[in-house]
Protein backbone atom coordinates (compact mmCIF):
# COMPACT_ATOMS: atom_id res chain seq x y z
CA UNK A 1 0.00 0.00 0.00
CA UNK A 2 1.27 3.38 -0.88
CA UNK A 3 0.27 6.40 1.11
CA UNK A 4 -0.67 9.62 -0.67
CA UNK A 5 0.09 8.19 -4.07
CA UNK A 6 -2.78 10.08 -5.66
CA UNK A 7 -1.44 13.52 -4.94
CA UNK A 8 -0.67 14.92 -8.36
CA UNK A 9 -1.40 18.60 -7.81
CA UNK A 10 1.79 20.49 -8.24
CA UNK A 11 3.60 17.44 -9.53
CA UNK A 12 5.85 18.43 -12.39
CA UNK A 13 6.14 16.13 -15.41
CA UNK A 14 9.52 16.86 -16.99
CA UNK A 15 9.52 17.34 -20.74
CA UNK A 16 10.85 19.27 -23.70
CA UNK A 17 7.57 20.29 -25.36
CA UNK A 18 6.65 23.72 -26.67
CA UNK A 19 4.64 24.30 -23.51
CA UNK A 20 7.54 23.27 -21.27
CA UNK A 21 9.89 25.64 -23.11
CA UNK A 22 7.73 28.74 -22.67
CA UNK A 23 9.01 31.33 -20.25
CA UNK A 24 7.40 30.65 -16.87
CA UNK A 25 6.49 34.33 -16.47
CA UNK A 26 4.56 34.20 -19.72
CA UNK A 27 2.80 31.06 -18.59
CA UNK A 28 1.85 32.58 -15.24
CA UNK A 29 0.65 35.82 -16.84
CA UNK A 30 -1.42 34.02 -19.47
CA UNK A 31 -2.85 31.67 -16.84
CA UNK A 32 -3.88 34.65 -14.75
CA UNK A 33 -5.68 36.24 -17.71
CA UNK A 34 -7.33 32.92 -18.47
CA UNK A 35 -8.57 32.62 -14.89
CA UNK A 36 -10.20 36.03 -15.04
CA UNK A 37 -11.73 35.07 -18.36
CA UNK A 38 -13.14 31.84 -16.95
CA UNK A 39 -14.98 33.84 -14.31
CA UNK A 40 -16.20 36.53 -16.70
CA UNK A 41 -17.53 34.25 -19.40
CA UNK A 42 -21.24 33.42 -19.24
CA UNK A 43 -21.91 31.67 -22.53
CA UNK A 44 -21.46 27.97 -23.08
CA UNK A 45 -19.76 28.63 -26.40
CA UNK A 46 -17.13 30.60 -24.50
CA UNK A 47 -16.62 27.68 -22.13
CA UNK A 48 -16.38 25.31 -25.08
CA UNK A 49 -13.69 27.43 -26.73
CA UNK A 50 -11.69 27.63 -23.50
CA UNK A 51 -12.01 23.88 -23.05
CA UNK A 52 -10.84 23.32 -26.62
CA UNK A 53 -7.94 25.67 -25.99
CA UNK A 54 -6.91 23.73 -22.86
CA UNK A 55 -7.16 20.45 -24.77
CA UNK A 56 -4.85 21.87 -27.41
CA UNK A 57 -2.35 22.96 -24.75
CA UNK A 58 -2.48 19.48 -23.17
CA UNK A 59 -1.80 17.95 -26.56
CA UNK A 60 1.13 20.31 -27.18
CA UNK A 61 2.58 19.63 -23.74
CA UNK A 62 2.78 15.91 -24.44
CA UNK A 63 1.31 15.09 -21.00
CA UNK A 64 -1.26 12.32 -20.98
CA UNK A 65 -4.79 13.72 -20.83
CA UNK A 66 -5.70 10.93 -18.42
CA UNK A 67 -3.03 12.15 -16.03
CA UNK A 68 -4.13 15.78 -16.13
CA UNK A 69 -7.68 14.71 -15.41
CA UNK A 70 -6.60 12.73 -12.35
CA UNK A 71 -5.80 16.02 -10.69
CA UNK A 72 -9.51 16.85 -10.84
CA UNK A 73 -10.47 14.01 -8.52
CA UNK A 74 -9.69 15.77 -5.25
CA UNK A 75 -11.89 18.76 -6.14
CA UNK A 76 -14.95 16.77 -7.23
CA UNK A 77 -16.32 17.07 -3.71
CA UNK A 78 -15.90 20.83 -3.81
CA UNK A 79 -17.67 20.96 -7.17
CA UNK A 80 -20.51 18.92 -5.74
CA UNK A 81 -20.99 21.26 -2.77
CA UNK A 82 -20.98 24.31 -5.04
CA UNK A 83 -23.52 22.73 -7.33
CA UNK A 84 -25.82 21.81 -4.46
CA UNK A 85 -25.64 25.28 -2.95
CA UNK A 86 -26.30 27.05 -6.22
CA UNK A 87 -29.04 24.61 -7.05
CA UNK A 88 -31.14 25.21 -3.97
CA UNK A 89 -30.47 28.81 -3.08
CA UNK A 90 -31.43 30.79 -6.16
CA UNK A 91 -34.70 32.61 -6.74
CA UNK A 92 -36.64 32.23 -9.99
CA UNK A 93 -39.06 29.96 -11.76
CA UNK A 94 -39.37 26.47 -10.36
CA UNK A 95 -38.32 23.54 -12.49
CA UNK A 96 -41.14 21.43 -11.05
CA UNK A 97 -43.99 23.84 -10.28
CA UNK A 98 -46.38 21.17 -8.95
CA UNK A 99 -46.25 20.16 -5.36
CA UNK A 100 -45.46 16.49 -4.82
CA UNK A 101 -46.97 15.14 -1.61
CA UNK A 102 -47.37 18.74 -0.49
CA UNK A 103 -43.66 19.55 -0.82
CA UNK A 104 -42.36 21.72 -3.61
CA UNK A 105 -38.86 21.06 -4.95
CA UNK A 106 -36.96 24.34 -4.44
CA UNK A 107 -34.94 24.04 -7.63
CA UNK A 108 -35.21 26.90 -10.09
CA UNK A 109 -34.10 27.16 -13.71
CA UNK A 110 -31.88 30.06 -12.74
CA UNK A 111 -30.30 28.01 -9.93
CA UNK A 112 -29.71 25.13 -12.32
CA UNK A 113 -27.99 27.42 -14.83
CA UNK A 114 -25.69 28.99 -12.19
CA UNK A 115 -24.89 25.58 -10.74
CA UNK A 116 -23.84 24.17 -14.09
CA UNK A 117 -21.77 27.26 -14.85
CA UNK A 118 -20.05 27.14 -11.47
CA UNK A 119 -19.19 23.48 -11.95
CA UNK A 120 -17.75 24.18 -15.41
CA UNK A 121 -15.78 27.13 -14.07
CA UNK A 122 -14.24 25.17 -11.22
CA UNK A 123 -13.28 22.33 -13.51
CA UNK A 124 -11.74 24.67 -16.10
CA UNK A 125 -9.90 26.51 -13.34
CA UNK A 126 -8.32 23.37 -11.92
CA UNK A 127 -7.65 22.08 -15.43
CA UNK A 128 -5.71 25.22 -16.36
CA UNK A 129 -3.75 25.46 -13.09
CA UNK A 130 -2.84 21.76 -13.24
CA UNK A 131 -1.54 22.31 -16.76
CA UNK A 132 0.58 25.17 -15.49
CA UNK A 133 2.13 23.21 -12.61
CA UNK A 134 2.47 19.98 -14.59
CA UNK A 135 4.46 21.68 -17.33
CA UNK A 136 6.51 24.09 -15.20
CA UNK A 137 9.06 22.98 -12.62
CA UNK A 138 8.62 24.41 -9.12
CA UNK A 139 11.97 26.16 -9.42
CA UNK A 140 10.87 27.92 -12.60
CA UNK A 141 7.58 28.88 -10.99
CA UNK A 142 9.22 30.49 -7.99
CA UNK A 143 11.84 32.21 -10.15
CA UNK A 144 9.05 33.67 -12.22
CA UNK A 145 7.10 34.72 -9.12
CA UNK A 146 10.13 36.51 -7.74
CA UNK A 147 10.68 38.20 -11.05
CA UNK A 148 7.06 39.27 -11.40
CA UNK A 149 6.93 40.52 -7.80
CA UNK A 150 10.23 42.41 -8.03
CA UNK A 151 8.64 45.76 -8.95
CA UNK A 152 6.59 45.64 -5.75
CA UNK A 153 9.70 45.53 -3.56
CA UNK A 154 9.48 49.31 -3.34
CA UNK A 155 6.18 49.11 -1.52
CA UNK A 156 7.62 46.63 0.98
CA UNK A 157 6.78 43.27 -0.52
CA UNK A 158 9.75 40.96 0.19
CA UNK A 159 9.75 39.31 -3.23
CA UNK A 160 12.95 37.34 -2.78
CA UNK A 161 12.09 36.05 0.68
CA UNK A 162 8.62 34.99 -0.44
CA UNK A 163 10.05 33.17 -3.43
CA UNK A 164 12.71 31.48 -1.30
CA UNK A 165 10.08 30.34 1.19
CA UNK A 166 8.00 28.97 -1.61
CA UNK A 167 10.97 27.17 -3.15
CA UNK A 168 11.83 25.54 0.16
CA UNK A 169 8.23 24.57 0.90
CA UNK A 170 7.80 23.06 -2.56
CA UNK A 171 11.13 21.31 -2.32
CA UNK A 172 10.21 19.64 0.95
CA UNK A 173 6.70 18.49 0.14
CA UNK A 174 7.86 15.34 -1.66
CA UNK A 175 10.50 14.71 1.01
CA UNK A 176 7.94 14.90 3.79
CA UNK A 177 5.46 12.76 1.87
CA UNK A 178 8.13 10.13 1.38
CA UNK A 179 9.11 10.30 5.02
CA UNK A 180 5.50 9.99 6.16
CA UNK A 181 5.15 6.94 3.96
CA UNK A 182 8.27 5.41 5.44
CA UNK A 183 7.29 6.05 9.06
CA UNK A 184 3.78 4.80 8.34
CA UNK A 185 5.19 1.55 6.98
CA UNK A 186 7.64 1.14 9.85
CA UNK A 187 4.88 1.56 12.45
CA UNK A 188 2.57 -0.77 10.57
CA UNK A 189 5.35 -3.33 10.70
CA UNK A 190 5.22 -2.94 14.46
CA UNK A 191 1.54 -3.77 14.38
CA UNK A 192 0.20 -0.23 14.64
CA UNK A 193 -3.34 0.18 13.39
CA UNK A 194 -4.71 3.43 12.12
CA UNK A 195 -8.18 4.85 11.89
CA UNK A 196 -9.85 2.41 14.26
CA UNK A 197 -12.08 3.12 17.23
CA UNK A 198 -13.48 6.42 18.43
CA UNK A 199 -12.22 9.85 17.57
CA UNK A 200 -9.80 9.98 20.53
CA UNK A 201 -8.35 6.61 19.67
CA UNK A 202 -8.02 7.63 16.04
CA UNK A 203 -6.14 10.77 17.00
CA UNK A 204 -3.94 8.78 19.37
CA UNK A 205 -3.09 6.26 16.69
CA UNK A 206 -1.58 9.11 14.65
CA UNK A 207 1.00 9.90 17.33
CA UNK A 208 3.45 7.21 16.20
CA UNK A 209 3.51 8.95 12.83
CA UNK A 210 3.33 12.59 13.81
CA UNK A 211 6.04 12.55 16.49
CA UNK A 212 8.80 11.17 14.24
CA UNK A 213 7.58 13.32 11.37
CA UNK A 214 7.91 16.52 13.41
CA UNK A 215 11.25 15.47 14.85
CA UNK A 216 12.56 15.01 11.34
CA UNK A 217 10.98 18.13 9.91
CA UNK A 218 12.76 20.17 12.59
CA UNK A 219 15.97 18.35 11.89
CA UNK A 220 15.65 19.09 8.18
CA UNK A 221 15.00 22.74 8.95
CA UNK A 222 18.10 22.94 11.17
CA UNK A 223 20.27 21.19 8.61
CA UNK A 224 19.01 23.44 5.85
CA UNK A 225 19.60 26.59 7.87
CA UNK A 226 23.13 25.45 8.66
CA UNK A 227 23.79 24.60 5.02
CA UNK A 228 22.49 27.97 3.84
CA UNK A 229 24.47 29.88 6.43
CA UNK A 230 27.68 28.03 5.71
CA UNK A 231 27.29 29.10 2.10
CA UNK A 232 26.95 32.70 3.19
CA UNK A 233 23.31 33.12 2.25
CA UNK A 234 22.32 36.70 3.05
CA UNK A 235 18.99 37.12 1.33
CA UNK A 236 18.30 38.48 -2.13
CA UNK A 237 20.59 41.53 -2.06
CA UNK A 238 23.09 41.37 -4.90
CA UNK A 239 22.36 37.75 -5.68
CA UNK A 240 22.89 36.61 -9.25
CA UNK A 241 21.19 33.61 -10.74
CA UNK A 242 22.28 30.49 -12.51
CA UNK A 243 19.12 30.24 -14.58
CA UNK A 244 18.32 33.48 -16.33
CA UNK A 245 14.79 33.88 -17.56
CA UNK A 246 14.68 34.88 -21.20
CA UNK A 247 11.78 35.82 -23.41
CA UNK A 248 12.10 34.12 -26.80
CA UNK A 249 10.23 34.28 -30.08
CA UNK A 250 8.21 31.29 -28.93
CA UNK A 251 6.83 33.38 -26.06
CA UNK A 252 5.88 36.08 -28.55
CA UNK A 253 3.91 33.60 -30.60
CA UNK A 254 2.25 32.23 -27.47
CA UNK A 255 1.20 35.75 -26.47
CA UNK A 256 -0.17 36.43 -29.92
CA UNK A 257 -2.05 33.15 -30.17
CA UNK A 258 -3.53 33.33 -26.68
CA UNK A 259 -4.28 37.03 -27.14
CA UNK A 260 -6.38 36.28 -30.23
CA UNK A 261 -8.28 33.43 -28.59
CA UNK A 262 -8.84 35.20 -25.29
CA UNK A 263 -10.00 38.44 -26.95
CA UNK A 264 -12.34 36.51 -29.19
CA UNK A 265 -13.89 34.72 -26.21
CA UNK A 266 -14.27 38.02 -24.36
CA UNK A 267 -15.75 39.80 -27.42
CA UNK A 268 -18.19 36.96 -28.04
CA UNK A 269 -19.24 37.05 -24.42
CA UNK A 270 -20.06 40.79 -24.37
CA UNK A 271 -21.10 41.59 -27.92
CA UNK A 272 -21.41 38.37 -29.86
CA UNK A 273 -24.61 37.09 -28.32
CA UNK A 274 -27.22 37.76 -30.96
Amino acid at each position, binding site marked *: *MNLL*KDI*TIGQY*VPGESTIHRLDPRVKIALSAVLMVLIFVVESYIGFAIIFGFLLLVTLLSGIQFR*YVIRGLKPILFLVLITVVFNLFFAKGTLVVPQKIYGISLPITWEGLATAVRMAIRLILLVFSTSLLTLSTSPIQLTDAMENLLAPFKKIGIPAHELAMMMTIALRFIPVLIEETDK*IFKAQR*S*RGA*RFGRGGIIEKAKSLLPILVPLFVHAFKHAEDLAAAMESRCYRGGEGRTRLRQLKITALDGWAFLFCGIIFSFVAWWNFYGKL
Partner: protein
Amino acid sequence: MSNNELTNTSDTPILRTENLCHVYQPGTPFEFAALNNVNIEIKKGEMAGIIGPTGSGKSTLVQHFNGLLKPTSGRVLVENQDINKREKKKRDKKSKDSEKPVCFKVGLVFQFPEYQLFEETVFEDIAFGPRNMELSPDEVNKRVYEAMEWMKIDAENMKDRSPFSLSGGEMRRVALAGVLAMQPSVLVLDEPTAGLDPRGCSELRDILRRLHSELNITLIMITHEMQEIARMVDHLIIMNKGEVYADGAPAEIFSNKEKIEALELGIPPAMELLNRLQQKGFNLKTNITGMEEAADEILKALK
Protein backbone atom coordinates in the same frame (compact mmCIF):
# COMPACT_ATOMS: atom_id res chain seq x y z
CA MET B 1 34.69 -16.84 11.54
CA SER B 2 32.18 -18.24 9.23
CA ASN B 3 29.38 -19.98 11.03
CA ASN B 4 27.89 -21.50 7.94
CA GLU B 5 28.37 -24.95 9.40
CA LEU B 6 26.79 -24.14 12.74
CA THR B 7 23.39 -23.19 11.42
CA ASN B 8 20.53 -25.59 11.55
CA THR B 9 18.91 -24.82 8.23
CA SER B 10 16.04 -27.13 7.47
CA ASP B 11 14.54 -27.84 4.11
CA THR B 12 11.14 -26.35 4.79
CA PRO B 13 10.64 -23.12 2.88
CA ILE B 14 9.33 -20.42 5.19
CA LEU B 15 9.03 -17.67 2.62
CA ARG B 16 8.55 -17.88 -1.11
CA THR B 17 7.65 -15.54 -3.94
CA GLU B 18 6.09 -16.69 -7.18
CA ASN B 19 6.44 -14.51 -10.28
CA LEU B 20 6.30 -11.46 -8.08
CA CYS B 21 5.95 -8.19 -9.99
CA HIS B 22 5.51 -4.71 -8.63
CA VAL B 23 4.74 -1.55 -10.56
CA TYR B 24 4.95 1.80 -8.76
CA GLN B 25 2.41 4.51 -9.63
CA PRO B 26 0.76 2.62 -12.48
CA GLY B 27 -1.09 4.72 -15.01
CA THR B 28 1.00 7.86 -14.49
CA PRO B 29 4.01 9.24 -16.35
CA PHE B 30 6.04 8.09 -13.31
CA GLU B 31 5.05 4.45 -13.78
CA PHE B 32 7.96 2.24 -12.85
CA ALA B 33 8.29 -1.54 -12.85
CA ALA B 34 10.44 -2.09 -9.76
CA LEU B 35 10.12 -5.87 -9.60
CA ASN B 36 9.94 -8.22 -12.50
CA ASN B 37 9.09 -11.88 -12.11
CA VAL B 38 10.93 -12.48 -8.88
CA ASN B 39 11.03 -16.11 -7.74
CA ILE B 40 12.92 -16.74 -4.54
CA GLU B 41 12.70 -19.19 -1.70
CA ILE B 42 13.99 -18.74 1.83
CA LYS B 43 14.29 -21.81 4.01
CA LYS B 44 13.48 -21.99 7.69
CA GLY B 45 16.43 -21.07 9.88
CA GLU B 46 18.41 -19.67 6.99
CA MET B 47 20.57 -16.59 7.09
CA ALA B 48 20.00 -14.99 3.71
CA GLY B 49 21.49 -11.90 2.16
CA ILE B 50 20.04 -9.69 -0.55
CA ILE B 51 22.50 -7.50 -2.36
CA GLY B 52 22.37 -5.39 -5.48
CA PRO B 53 23.10 -1.96 -6.93
CA THR B 54 21.07 0.98 -5.73
CA GLY B 55 17.57 1.05 -7.20
CA SER B 56 17.56 -2.66 -7.98
CA GLY B 57 14.36 -3.25 -6.01
CA LYS B 58 15.71 -4.74 -2.79
CA SER B 59 13.62 -2.63 -0.45
CA THR B 60 10.58 -3.04 -2.67
CA LEU B 61 11.00 -6.80 -2.51
CA VAL B 62 11.21 -7.09 1.26
CA GLN B 63 8.22 -4.83 1.79
CA HIS B 64 6.16 -7.57 0.15
CA PHE B 65 7.26 -10.05 2.81
CA ASN B 66 4.98 -8.69 5.51
CA GLY B 67 2.25 -7.36 3.28
CA LEU B 68 3.18 -3.66 3.32
CA LEU B 69 3.19 -3.63 -0.47
CA LYS B 70 0.76 -5.69 -2.48
CA PRO B 71 2.05 -7.48 -5.56
CA THR B 72 0.93 -6.06 -8.90
CA SER B 73 0.95 -9.69 -9.96
CA GLY B 74 2.32 -12.89 -8.52
CA ARG B 75 2.19 -14.25 -5.00
CA VAL B 76 4.05 -14.10 -1.73
CA LEU B 77 3.81 -17.18 0.45
CA VAL B 78 4.74 -17.33 4.11
CA GLU B 79 4.66 -20.86 5.46
CA ASN B 80 2.90 -21.93 2.27
CA GLN B 81 0.05 -19.49 2.68
CA ASP B 82 -0.58 -16.65 0.25
CA ILE B 83 -0.37 -13.71 2.62
CA ASN B 84 -2.57 -11.45 0.54
CA LYS B 85 -5.28 -14.00 0.00
CA ARG B 86 -5.63 -15.03 3.60
CA GLU B 87 -6.20 -11.47 4.64
CA LYS B 88 -9.10 -11.18 2.28
CA LYS B 89 -10.78 -14.29 3.50
CA LYS B 90 -10.62 -13.08 7.06
CA ARG B 91 -11.93 -9.70 6.19
CA ASP B 92 -14.96 -11.32 4.65
CA LYS B 93 -15.63 -12.93 7.98
CA LYS B 94 -15.36 -9.49 9.56
CA SER B 95 -12.48 -10.57 11.73
CA LYS B 96 -10.86 -7.63 13.45
CA ASP B 97 -7.26 -8.75 13.30
CA SER B 98 -7.05 -9.39 9.60
CA GLU B 99 -3.38 -8.41 9.43
CA LYS B 100 -2.23 -10.05 12.60
CA PRO B 101 -0.58 -13.23 11.38
CA VAL B 102 1.71 -11.97 8.61
CA CYS B 103 2.62 -8.72 10.18
CA PHE B 104 3.72 -10.47 13.36
CA LYS B 105 5.35 -13.48 11.77
CA VAL B 106 7.68 -11.46 9.57
CA GLY B 107 9.40 -8.60 11.38
CA LEU B 108 10.66 -5.88 9.08
CA VAL B 109 13.32 -3.42 10.16
CA PHE B 110 13.65 -0.50 7.79
CA GLN B 111 16.76 1.31 6.73
CA PHE B 112 17.53 3.85 9.45
CA PRO B 113 14.96 2.40 11.88
CA GLU B 114 15.57 5.26 14.28
CA TYR B 115 12.84 6.94 12.22
CA GLN B 116 10.21 4.91 14.01
CA LEU B 117 11.02 5.98 17.58
CA PHE B 118 8.30 8.12 19.10
CA GLU B 119 7.52 7.18 22.70
CA GLU B 120 8.58 9.08 25.78
CA THR B 121 10.88 6.38 27.10
CA VAL B 122 12.97 3.62 25.63
CA PHE B 123 10.92 1.04 27.50
CA GLU B 124 7.62 2.31 26.15
CA ASP B 125 8.98 2.40 22.63
CA ILE B 126 10.14 -1.19 22.68
CA ALA B 127 6.81 -2.19 24.23
CA PHE B 128 4.83 -0.60 21.38
CA GLY B 129 4.98 -3.66 19.13
CA PRO B 130 4.19 -6.30 21.77
CA ARG B 131 1.30 -4.15 23.05
CA ASN B 132 -0.14 -4.03 19.56
CA MET B 133 -0.12 -7.81 19.67
CA GLU B 134 -2.45 -7.55 22.65
CA LEU B 135 -0.23 -9.56 24.96
CA SER B 136 -0.65 -9.52 28.74
CA PRO B 137 1.31 -6.78 30.58
CA ASP B 138 3.54 -9.42 32.18
CA GLU B 139 4.37 -10.92 28.81
CA VAL B 140 5.06 -7.46 27.35
CA ASN B 141 7.38 -6.72 30.26
CA LYS B 142 9.22 -9.97 29.83
CA ARG B 143 9.69 -9.53 26.12
CA VAL B 144 10.91 -5.96 26.43
CA TYR B 145 13.61 -6.93 28.93
CA GLU B 146 14.61 -9.91 26.82
CA ALA B 147 14.87 -7.78 23.71
CA MET B 148 16.95 -5.20 25.57
CA GLU B 149 19.30 -7.92 26.74
CA TRP B 150 19.68 -9.30 23.22
CA MET B 151 20.42 -5.89 21.79
CA LYS B 152 22.88 -5.17 24.63
CA ILE B 153 20.87 -2.26 25.93
CA ASP B 154 21.65 -1.52 29.56
CA ALA B 155 18.12 -1.78 30.92
CA GLU B 156 18.78 -0.08 34.25
CA ASN B 157 20.23 3.10 32.81
CA MET B 158 18.39 3.30 29.56
CA LYS B 159 14.84 2.19 30.01
CA ASP B 160 13.52 5.50 31.34
CA ARG B 161 15.48 7.77 29.03
CA SER B 162 13.93 9.51 26.07
CA PRO B 163 14.79 7.70 22.85
CA PHE B 164 15.59 11.07 21.28
CA SER B 165 18.41 11.68 23.76
CA LEU B 166 20.35 8.61 22.64
CA SER B 167 23.30 8.38 20.30
CA GLY B 168 22.77 7.12 16.75
CA GLY B 169 24.05 3.64 17.50
CA GLU B 170 21.93 3.35 20.64
CA MET B 171 18.84 4.52 18.79
CA ARG B 172 19.43 1.88 16.18
CA ARG B 173 19.61 -0.85 18.81
CA VAL B 174 16.47 0.38 20.57
CA ALA B 175 14.62 0.39 17.25
CA LEU B 176 15.80 -3.14 16.51
CA ALA B 177 14.76 -4.24 20.01
CA GLY B 178 11.31 -2.86 19.27
CA VAL B 179 10.90 -5.31 16.41
CA LEU B 180 12.69 -8.15 18.15
CA ALA B 181 10.33 -7.91 21.13
CA MET B 182 7.54 -9.02 18.82
CA GLN B 183 9.43 -12.30 18.42
CA PRO B 184 8.96 -12.73 14.69
CA SER B 185 10.00 -16.03 13.16
CA VAL B 186 11.49 -14.23 10.17
CA LEU B 187 13.49 -11.07 10.73
CA VAL B 188 14.11 -8.90 7.68
CA LEU B 189 16.63 -6.08 7.99
CA ASP B 190 17.09 -3.37 5.37
CA GLU B 191 20.72 -2.25 5.57
CA PRO B 192 21.01 -2.75 9.33
CA THR B 193 24.55 -1.36 9.55
CA ALA B 194 24.14 1.68 7.29
CA GLY B 195 25.55 4.81 8.90
CA LEU B 196 27.16 3.07 11.88
CA ASP B 197 30.84 3.35 12.73
CA PRO B 198 32.99 0.24 12.10
CA ARG B 199 32.77 -0.84 15.71
CA GLY B 200 28.99 -0.41 15.81
CA CYS B 201 28.79 -2.42 12.59
CA SER B 202 30.73 -5.39 13.89
CA GLU B 203 28.86 -5.33 17.22
CA LEU B 204 25.54 -5.37 15.43
CA ARG B 205 26.69 -8.18 13.17
CA ASP B 206 27.71 -10.23 16.20
CA ILE B 207 24.30 -9.68 17.74
CA LEU B 208 22.59 -10.77 14.54
CA ARG B 209 24.76 -13.87 14.30
CA ARG B 210 23.87 -14.82 17.87
CA LEU B 211 20.17 -14.19 17.25
CA HIS B 212 20.35 -16.49 14.31
CA SER B 213 22.29 -19.31 15.91
CA GLU B 214 20.76 -19.21 19.39
CA LEU B 215 17.14 -18.29 18.72
CA ASN B 216 17.11 -19.95 15.31
CA ILE B 217 15.42 -16.96 13.73
CA THR B 218 15.34 -16.88 9.93
CA LEU B 219 17.32 -13.78 9.01
CA ILE B 220 17.13 -11.88 5.76
CA MET B 221 19.52 -8.98 5.35
CA ILE B 222 19.80 -6.35 2.68
CA THR B 223 23.19 -4.80 2.31
CA HIS B 224 25.60 -3.00 0.04
CA GLU B 225 28.71 -4.53 1.53
CA MET B 226 29.65 -7.62 -0.39
CA GLN B 227 32.69 -8.31 1.81
CA GLU B 228 30.79 -8.70 5.01
CA ILE B 229 27.67 -10.36 3.78
CA ALA B 230 29.45 -13.00 1.76
CA ARG B 231 31.01 -14.53 4.86
CA MET B 232 27.97 -14.18 7.08
CA VAL B 233 25.15 -15.69 5.07
CA ASP B 234 24.45 -19.13 3.73
CA HIS B 235 22.16 -17.98 0.95
CA LEU B 236 22.83 -15.00 -1.26
CA ILE B 237 20.41 -13.34 -3.66
CA ILE B 238 21.75 -10.72 -6.04
CA MET B 239 19.19 -8.33 -7.48
CA ASN B 240 19.67 -6.21 -10.56
CA LYS B 241 17.11 -3.98 -12.28
CA GLY B 242 14.18 -5.58 -10.50
CA GLU B 243 15.20 -9.11 -11.36
CA VAL B 244 17.02 -11.90 -9.57
CA TYR B 245 20.51 -11.81 -11.06
CA ALA B 246 22.01 -14.67 -9.08
CA ASP B 247 20.70 -16.91 -6.32
CA GLY B 248 22.53 -19.58 -4.34
CA ALA B 249 25.26 -20.27 -1.81
CA PRO B 250 27.91 -17.52 -1.77
CA ALA B 251 30.77 -19.83 -2.77
CA GLU B 252 28.73 -21.08 -5.69
CA ILE B 253 27.83 -17.56 -6.81
CA PHE B 254 31.37 -16.26 -6.55
CA SER B 255 32.73 -19.11 -8.59
CA ASN B 256 31.22 -17.33 -11.60
CA LYS B 257 33.61 -14.42 -11.38
CA GLU B 258 32.75 -12.60 -14.60
CA LYS B 259 29.07 -12.49 -13.78
CA ILE B 260 29.70 -10.89 -10.40
CA GLU B 261 32.28 -8.44 -11.65
CA ALA B 262 29.86 -7.23 -14.31
CA LEU B 263 27.75 -5.67 -11.56
CA GLU B 264 30.72 -3.95 -9.91
CA LEU B 265 29.54 -4.85 -6.45
CA GLY B 266 33.01 -5.81 -5.33
CA ILE B 267 34.29 -9.21 -4.36
CA PRO B 268 35.15 -10.31 -0.82
CA PRO B 269 38.80 -9.39 -0.21
CA ALA B 270 39.80 -12.94 0.72
CA MET B 271 38.45 -14.18 -2.56
CA GLU B 272 40.10 -11.35 -4.47
CA LEU B 273 43.44 -12.30 -2.93
CA LEU B 274 43.02 -15.98 -3.82
CA ASN B 275 42.05 -15.03 -7.35
CA ARG B 276 45.18 -12.95 -7.82
CA LEU B 277 47.35 -15.70 -6.37
CA GLN B 278 45.80 -18.18 -8.74
CA GLN B 279 46.56 -15.88 -11.65
CA LYS B 280 50.19 -15.83 -10.49
CA GLY B 281 50.26 -19.58 -10.87
CA PHE B 282 49.46 -20.87 -7.39
CA ASN B 283 47.33 -23.93 -7.27
CA LEU B 284 44.46 -23.18 -4.87
CA LYS B 285 40.69 -23.01 -4.55
CA THR B 286 39.19 -19.56 -4.97
CA ASN B 287 35.60 -19.95 -3.85
CA ILE B 288 36.38 -19.07 -0.23
CA THR B 289 34.97 -15.99 1.42
CA GLY B 290 36.31 -16.04 4.99
CA MET B 291 39.77 -14.69 5.88
CA GLU B 292 40.72 -17.64 8.14
CA GLU B 293 39.80 -20.25 5.54
CA ALA B 294 41.70 -18.26 2.93
CA ALA B 295 44.77 -18.28 5.13
CA ASP B 296 44.49 -22.05 5.54
CA GLU B 297 44.16 -22.46 1.80
CA ILE B 298 47.25 -20.35 1.13
CA LEU B 299 49.24 -22.32 3.72
CA LYS B 300 48.16 -25.52 2.04
CA ALA B 301 49.23 -24.18 -1.36
CA LEU B 302 52.62 -23.10 -0.01
CA LYS B 303 53.41 -26.50 1.46
